[in-house]
């Protein structure tokens, strides 16, 4: 015998699982700390690549001057200057990433809480059907 309420609930849950639920469920497989750390690590990689590109552009911007002054410049001071700038960019970028990933995790958990309550509801319907 087909129970229409149960099918409606299952349809709703299957639709969620097929769309947003896919991501939410994968997020829920992580502990909060692990999920955020992993996201922040990926962001750090992106920030490093991005910073490298910016430095490349900076050198290209005045490549003639750079090549002329290269043998005269204090390389250690130059590298230190770049390292400080890299650290500042990285810290700002990682802070933003931390906030974004923490928000995403809490949102996914919120959606999953609703999904779990629907699962319980489904279980009760099954029990009542005997």
């Amino acid at each position: 015998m087909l129970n229409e309420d149960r099918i409606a609930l299952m349809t709703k849950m299957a639709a969620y699982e097929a769309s947003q639920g896919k991501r939410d469920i994968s997020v829920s497989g992580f502990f909060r700390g692990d999920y955020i750390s992993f996201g922040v690590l990926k962001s750090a990689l992106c920030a490093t690549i991005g910073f490298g590109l910016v430095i490349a552009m900076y050198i290209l911007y005045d490549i003639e001057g750079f090549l002329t002054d290269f043998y005269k410049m204090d390389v250690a001071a130059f590298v230190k200057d770049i390292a400080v700038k890299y650290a500042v960019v990285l810290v700002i970028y990682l802070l933003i990433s931390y906030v974004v990933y923490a928000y995403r995790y809490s949102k996914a958990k919120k959606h999953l809480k609703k999904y779990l309550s629907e699962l319980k509801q489904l279980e009760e319907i099954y029990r009542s059907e005997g």
Partner: protein
Amino acid sequence: MTTLLVIKEQLMGFFSRFEAYIVAVLKFILSMIALLLINADLGFMQKIDNGAIVLIVSLICSFLPMNLIVLILAAFILLHLYSLSLECAVIVAIVFVLMFLLYFRFSPRDACAVILTPICYMLKIPYVVPLTLGFVGTPMSCVSVGCGTVVYYMLGYVKANADRLAKSKSSSDPESALGSFKYIIDGLLGSDKMLLFVIAFAVVVVVVYMIKSLPVDYSWKIALGLGVVVNILVILIGCSALEVELSVGGVIFGTLISALIVFVIQFFIFNVDYSRTENVQFEDDEYFYYVKAIPKMSVEAPDVNVKRMNYRDDYDDYDDEEDDDDELDYL
């Protein structure tokens, strides 16, 4: 108002029934407009500045995810720039990679905004995008609208300076080629106007998002109103701070027109639960279910039934007249 609600419901019904086709057609139209605009503005590579190529690529794009469409459009731009000047293509490629690094990390679902921002700029209503994203996106959507703005200004610069950029390609002198990097970077990224719009739009997205999320009545309308005010104020203050020349009337008029458009979009799209038709499959111990769930209509389209009250085909039929009177009383 009821008529508008009925139109809204009919749109919902239509969208629910033909969602797969409508999305494909919209993607096709969007990619075609974007490709045509790129070809019209740049058009340096004859091989891809071709109607047939645009049509084929647009058709392919209609079945691709939005983010892939963004990459294809970026590839088109780079191919055109490569034909114009290698240095220019290299710099734009680096800027694109930087933007993608930001965009794919923080707002990968706003691909539509990245494409629509330059298109709206060309239509002189760029303010529509940040105002809309404040409602449908997240604060990180400011990355998408920023990327769109940068792309628009870079393309504008290349279009305006194509002759000079082409000279750097024809020059065989390596020193001249190296020097041209400075000229290109200054031109592409040194625009104060671009910086102003990136900042203004980021502020608008965040302000609209924060206010519409407040648990107060009419928060969406307040958010739209404040979004308009903040947009105008930030742009005008930025104009004087960065010494950018901009038509004040144009900013105010453009923002108001954009707000009107957002208001209409808000009525037809934002307030509606365009729950799409869901085709889902699942199973229990006894059955496999293949379910197509179609969202319900909440306002019924009225059945137009013309009843002629003063028409009698038979004067003697008194009973009929009495029936009509009864119906009038009932109505």
